[in-house]
């Protein structure tokens, strides 16, 4: 059976989740990606990606308590699953292997 590769944004979201640990919810996830990429991230895109990753079994979620600073709305915390972690490792191996074979990326001359 063919497996789907992780998309670029999916990988960014999973890496942000791993960095943030137990404090991973929409705001810090989007900020972590924005700080690393230097680009504005739409929170809607983060949530759509998290939904998709949860459907694939790479992410699990729990609902926190509502707080006043959020207009009385609860946070949804996300966590990477063992399956998700395996997928990130696989993506890392694939990317590193491909990276090594690209002469233009050696020496920073491009």
């Amino acid at each position, binding site marked *: 059976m063919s497996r789907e590769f992780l998309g670029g944004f999916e990988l960014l979201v999973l890496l942000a989740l791993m960095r943030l640990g137990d404090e991973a919810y929409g705001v810090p996830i989007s900020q972590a990606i924005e700080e690393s990429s230097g680009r504005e991230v739409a929170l809607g895109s983060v*949530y759509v990606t998290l939904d998709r990753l949860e459907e694939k079994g790479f992410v699990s979620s729990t*609902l926190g308590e*509502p707080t006043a600073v*959020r207009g*009385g709305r609860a*946070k*949804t915390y996300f966590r990477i699953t063992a399956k998700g972690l395996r997928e990130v490792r696989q993506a890392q191996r694939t990317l590193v292997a491909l990276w090594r074979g690209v002469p233009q990326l050696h020496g920073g001359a491009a």
Partner: protein
Amino acid sequence: MAPRPPRFATWLLEHFVSGPRRQSLVGDLHEKYLQGYSTAWYWRQVVTTIVVSATRDISANRRLALRAVAMGWLGYAVLSFPAHWLAESVRLRVQDWLVTSGHYTFWPVFLAGPLSATLFACIAGAAIGWLVARLHPTHAVTMVCLFSVSVLLFELGFTGLMLSIQTHAPMPQAALMLPVVLAMGAPVSVLLGGLWTARTAKDSLSGISADS
């Protein structure tokens, strides 16, 4: 007092975004806004979120989307005949009255036709929006939005075509703009009729369940 995000933008977010985490998403945007992000940023996030959410819903339910648009247009075609007939009846009566009462000037006569046509197109549009939402309860908001966008594109395209091929005597600029503005009546009515239905049946919408 802490600043509040734009209310209308939040209303749009709460009514047009589907998915089980809508409330958490609204809370995240609220939290970021309080961190000092601008109103323009908030609006940009809201519009992007609505588009991304609708696109995801449509691509995950392509058959349903196709069915919603087809059924909507079928209903629109069926209702267009009585709507057109009623609009014409009203237009003729109003113009008769204008002639007999001595108010026969350009604007009332010019407006009688488009306004009566738009009124009945809006009623028909709201009815079709209601129908599309009722027939697709699990993704009512997305399906109504999709059909409404298809009506908007059709109406604007049709109006543009009519304006380009008609060879009127020179008309005031406002008179040329009017059909374009009125063309938006039907799609907006579709949206309102559909949204009203979706909201009243909120609890049964599995795709739009709130966090709780």
